[in-house]
């Protein structure tokens, strides 16, 4: 049956786009001929704000970029500032930072996998996943008082030390999480309908993926063995032992399995961090120290000067956030406020490949492929 082209608008408000993204689809019957993403609904001008606030004042704004995993955002900016100003960070602060970032990686992948499966129809995965996420968020609340926007990592160290009940609860969480990940695998990995929906959908080979600027688990699903934590290590990652999870097929199923494996590797890293945590109480760099602060669990908090002028220069520092490579390009002119802050967000760069990825597929495949790319609109629009 010859039918005319149909224009369908998967509008900004839609249950399957994770946030406010709009797709203009030109379709021939059931197949997509052309897909144009329209973004910018969540643009808040974070880069312009970066020019108007001081370095310390900008850190809460970085929380709101990728609101599912806020610790790596904090850390990427703080790492750029520390490289610019040459600040030394004590070992215990680095261990605490890596602890929070890896915990955040686990719960980010839970949200990503859960919402992908909810779009496909199996609502059980997200309910089970959020049960674990609740435990992790309670741990974070114990640590820094907030569940989503942490504002915890400061240049020089972390804001407060670990309170007393934290370590036993973290150990319990680690034991629990291992069994639960096995549960998730048993629920969904071998399911034939899931294989039918995900295998050979949205295939991209390694060369094209690198050309589009893909990074993170999506790139590792196409066979490129690259992880910033391993090959350009920062913080204490040189001392930690973990594998890089790589799959060669390049389809949606491979990207999904990479995320499941990464959750297990993060558990492994967390166990090493907990075992080797230094016992000293230094959480802030030697030049700034700590100051008494009421209302904190330990009574002290890091001190960071209000007038902080790094030397003039520019730096581009990147880390391995759960969604990919998150980079901050900071230009300083010697005053208290940055001259320019440019944010290289992984979701924005991963989203550029969607038009070519879904040509010829059906709408159900668009949803499956889009879910595996793991986009958060706060990161795309900044």
């Amino acid at each position: 049956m010859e039918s005319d082209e149909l224009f369908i608008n998967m509008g900004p408000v839609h249950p399957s786009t994770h946030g406010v993204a709009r797709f203009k689809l030109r379709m021939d019957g059931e197949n997509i001929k052309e897909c144009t993403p329209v973004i910018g609904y969540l643009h808040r001008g974070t880069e312009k704000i970066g020019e108007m606030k001081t370095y310390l004042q900008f850190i809460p704004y970085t929380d709101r970029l990728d609101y599912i995993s806020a610790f790596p955002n904090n850390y990427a900016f703080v790492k750029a500032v520390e490289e610019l100003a040459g600040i030394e960070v004590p070992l215990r602060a680095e261990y605490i930072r890596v602890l929070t970032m890896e915990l955040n990686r686990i719960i980010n992948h839970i949200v990503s996998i859960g919402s992908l499966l909810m779009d496909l129809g199996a609502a059980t995965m997200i309910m089970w996943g959020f049960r674990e996420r609740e435990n992790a968020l309670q741990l974070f609340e114990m640590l820094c008082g907030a569940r989503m926007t942490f504002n915890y990592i400061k240049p020089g160290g972390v804001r407060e030390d670990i309170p007393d009940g934290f370590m036993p609860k973290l150990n319990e969480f680690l034991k629990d999480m291992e069994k639960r990940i096995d549960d998730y695998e048993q629920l969904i990995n071998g399911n034939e309908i899931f294989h039918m929906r995900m295998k050979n959908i949205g295939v991209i080979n390694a060369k094209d993926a690198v050309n589009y600027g893909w990074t993170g688990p999506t790139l590792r699903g196409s066979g490129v063995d690259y992880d910033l934590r391993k090959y350009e290590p920062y913080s204490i990652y040189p001392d930690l032992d973990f594998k890089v999870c790589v799959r060669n097929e390049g389809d949606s199923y491979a990207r999904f399995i990479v995320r499941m494996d990464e959750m297990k590797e993060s558990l492994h890293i967390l166990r090493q961090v907990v075992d080797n945590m230094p016992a000293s109480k230094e959480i802030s760099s030697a030049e700034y120290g700590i100051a008494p602060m009421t209302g904190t669990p330990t009574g002290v908090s890091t001190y960071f000067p209000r007038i902080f002028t790094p030397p003039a220069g520019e730096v581009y520092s990147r880390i391995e956030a759960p969604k990919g490579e998150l980079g901050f390009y900071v230009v300083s002119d010697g005053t208290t406020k940055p001259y320019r802050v440019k944010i290289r967000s992984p979701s924005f760069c991963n989203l550029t490949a969607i038009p070519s990825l879904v040509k010829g597929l059906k709408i159900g495949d668009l949803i499956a492929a889009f879910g595996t790319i793991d986009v958060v609109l706060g990161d795309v629009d900044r």
Partner: protein
Amino acid sequence: MNAAEELKALLPGSVISTGLQLNKPMAVIKKEDLLKAAGKAKDIGFDHLSVITGIDYKDHFEVIYNFFSYSKKQNLALKVNLDHDKPEVETLTSLWNGADWLERETFDLVGIKFIGHPNLIRILLPDGWNGHPLRKDYDMNTEQFVTIGENGDDVVSPDGTNLLRRK
């Protein structure tokens, strides 16, 4: 020798100077030779274009490209200086597909035109927006109002007459 000096050895006429971007090799390229230099960088192994940054210094513009090589595990930065009145430079979309949206964003926010780009329209701000926000002479005090038009696209106007509720 580091990657910037290697590039200078291969294209002596295009590279103005080499230096360091804190700890990464950086080469300043002549504006006209950017495509050639980027192509040569891709040939010697820099296959990952990480970010394109546009900066407005008040008397000139700068565009900085950060590259990375998966095979050699090295970084490289290329910088181009542009006139303040007419900031234009060639596009890299013929070499990297990922440069498409990065250049659109730089055009949108900083106002740098990329010659030869297939689809240079605004990406983060709505289509009718006036001005480029990340320039230093952008007027932060005027307000512009955005509503949704008949076919779903955004409509920008300087006063609030197209809003349902008046301010």
